[in-house]
């Protein structure tokens, strides 16, 4: 159903580019081509439909159900019988409106924590991750060992690393022994946030390091040689060669980390504990509401978090999109063609270099 309407839209421009034909005189040709490839269009629809079916089941249906659920309130207790009423009352958008009402404190606290964790951890991870990548990229003895060592934290499951850090941040733990001062990390307060940030950065900076390392390895050595002949300092090389060239890889890494950080749940939940205002994130709030059998508000919070994540993703996709093409002379019209035509892009990059 849906597939038949989508396929012509998506395939037409692709075909146009694949054959290297200009897409200017579109209208007369499209009809003839459509007739010629009607069979392949059906074939494409047939091939795509299982994917769409799976997506419908695992993505669209749950979203719609969550959206619907978020319009219902919790079931009330009937004081006469002592039993919970059997139906959930329809409350419209009240669950969303409540966010701005008296009960919204907890939501905005969670929203603030989520945003704070995302901004701080991703910023720290980016700096440390790039540093790790530069170290891993260097050729020296024992490099394999260093690489493996750096990647270990990323390989440890989050729940396990949360337990590990809880042990470190214990009142008698290593952290306090090193500091020589007793800080009760797992109590409420700013120190709890610090504990979460330290554990999160420790765990996920290697991820950024890994992706940036991949980006570093495709930078041709000649570029650096040329820079060295021109007398550029190491810092200038990093700033003007390394950073611009790994930027696409770095941005992908940062995007992934942002989305992950926005959905942070298990680390603060295990490290600091449930019900702790200082570290409660939106995911923890939604889970808590759901576990108290208030699926309506829980869905509403989850939908709001989902929108937040989506917004962030779209913002990044736009950012990535413009950057991957890197069209400095601003020829917007041909942007999409360049991306889809590797030969043209390569030619252009060659010119630029």
């Amino acid at each position, binding site marked *: 159903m849906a597939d038949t309407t989508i396929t012509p839209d998506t395939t037409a421009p692709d075909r146009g580019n694949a054959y290297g034909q200009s897409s200017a005189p579109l209208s007369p040709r499209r009809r003839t081509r459509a007739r010629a490839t009607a069979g392949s269009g059906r074939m494409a629809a047939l091939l795509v439909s299982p994917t769409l079916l799976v997506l419908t089941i695992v993505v669209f249906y749950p979203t719609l159900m969550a959206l619907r659920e978020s319009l219902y309130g919790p079931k009330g207790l009937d004081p006469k019988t002592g039993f919970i009423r059997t139906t959930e009352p329809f409350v419209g958008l009240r669950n969303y409106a409540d966010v701005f009402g008296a009960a919204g404190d907890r939501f905005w606290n969670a929203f603030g924590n989520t945003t704070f964790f995302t901004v701080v951890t991703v910023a720290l991870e980016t700096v440390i991750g790039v540093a790790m990548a530069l170290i891993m990229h260097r050729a020296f003895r024992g490099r394999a060992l260093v690489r493996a060592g750096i990647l270990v934290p990323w390989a440890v499951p989050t729940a396990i690393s949360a337990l590990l850090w809880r042990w470190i941040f214990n009142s008698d733990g290593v952290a306090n022994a090193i500091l020589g001062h007793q800080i009760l990390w797992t109590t409420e307060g700013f120190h709890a946030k610090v504990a979460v940030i330290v554990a999160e950065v420790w765990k996920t900076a290697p991820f950024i390091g890994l992706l940036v390392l991949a980006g570093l390895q495709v930078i041709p050595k000649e570029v650096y040689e040329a820079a060295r002949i021109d007398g550029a300092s190491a810092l200038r090389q990093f700033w003007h060669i390394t950073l611009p060239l790994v930027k696409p890889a770095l941005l992908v890494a940062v995007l992934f980390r942002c989305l992950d950080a926005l959905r942070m749940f298990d680390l603060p939940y295990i490290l600091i504990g449930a*019900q702790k205002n200082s570290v409660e994130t939106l995911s923890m709030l939604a889970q808590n509401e759901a576990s108290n059998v208030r*699926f309506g508000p829980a869905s509403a919070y989850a939908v709001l978090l989902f929108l937040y994540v989506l917004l962030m993703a779209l913002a990044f996709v736009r950012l990535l999109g413009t950057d991957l093409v890197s069209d400095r002379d601003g020829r917007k019209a041909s942007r999409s063609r360049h991306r889809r035509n590797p030969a043209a892009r390569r030619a252009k990059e060659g010119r630029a270099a």
Partner: protein
Amino acid sequence: MKTRTTRALQCSAPLVAAGLLLTACGSSGGSGSGEQAGSTSFEGRGPITYVAGKDASGVVQKVIDGWNKLHPTEKVTFVQLPTDADSQRQQMIQNAETKSDAYTVLSLDVVWTSEFAAHQWIERLPEQQFPLRNMLKPVVDTAKYRGGLYAVPASSDGGLLYYRTDLLKKAGITKPPTTWSEMTADCAKVKRLPEAKGMSCYAGQFQKYEGLTVNFAEAVDSAGGVVTDANGKPDVDTPQARQGLEFLAGAVKDGTIPREAVTYQEEDSRQAFQSGKVIFLRNWPYVYALAEKSKMAGKFTVAPLPGLNGPGSSSLGGHNLALSSFAKNRATALDFMRFFSSEDSASTFLKDASLAPPYAKLYDDASLVKQYPYLPDLKQSILHAVPRPRVVQYGDATSAIQQEAYAALTGSKSSTQALKDLQNDLQKYTAQ
């Protein structure tokens, strides 16, 4: 333009999927669940399931095997859920919300009974079919909701005061304290000993989690207050409750309770006691066997919890058996519940896994007392025990208690203000 939107869609599809995993978990149970929870007839025989948390000792499977040998056509399958109570509760709720008959007999934590009964996830049981008269009354009360029996006690648990006999003896104290002021006086004497250098007096479980609710309720009840009254109405804004909370908050402030105790859960406080950091410890009976194996062996024993003007009250722990409202083969289920909660089974659970039995008689059995010397004290503890607040929205009630009690303990709120706020919060969750 067209290509760009398509691209954005392609790129964001995985993100959408990832984001949705979260939304999806909130989306169950849309339609009204729990229509009038069936008739009270218990019919049908055949295989059933028993659902409980992970059985570390293996004794549950042993008892079930005993049943299966006798009833080859009515076999019981043991469904093991994760160890932590929250995920057990969640799985049971999910099962009930989907009205699945996969779970027959549920092992409920004593504080869940009201919630499960009010949602009609569990069936009301015929009282005369169970030997409730032989059980300790506070334990039986945990299985009731609005006067009806909704579960059968299978095991119980009560708090005990662990104390250092070696130090108390050296300081010339022969009897364990029965009041808080006696305890602090004893501490002052003990701390004058060179061996007690750097020790704190008392510890319990004061991290912001369920254990704090237990300890807070114990303090309030031991001072003569209540969290919820006989009708289930919250009543914490009282002088008695304030004296209870102030004992804890004041003790943290003046160092009677060590400062780091606000991060203690059961195990942390046990470690603190075993490593000689505190003289008195409030904990569950399970600690006894472990401490006996540590370097503390022979240097400690137990007593009932102290209170404000005399022996205090413990919070009740333990598990009850309930019958899922959506289960089949209920005649078998009822028989199995009788078998599983019988005195014989309770005695096996006590012997093999040191689970406190609901039956009064077992606490006085000489051979058992020889194995577990704390049994007489535990019996006293349970007899004086008060159930944690019995409200339908227990999850919210316990969060509110943790929130306010923690604020008072860490000094960010006065006890008076904390109790006033708590009273307001609790009223919200019990009013409806």
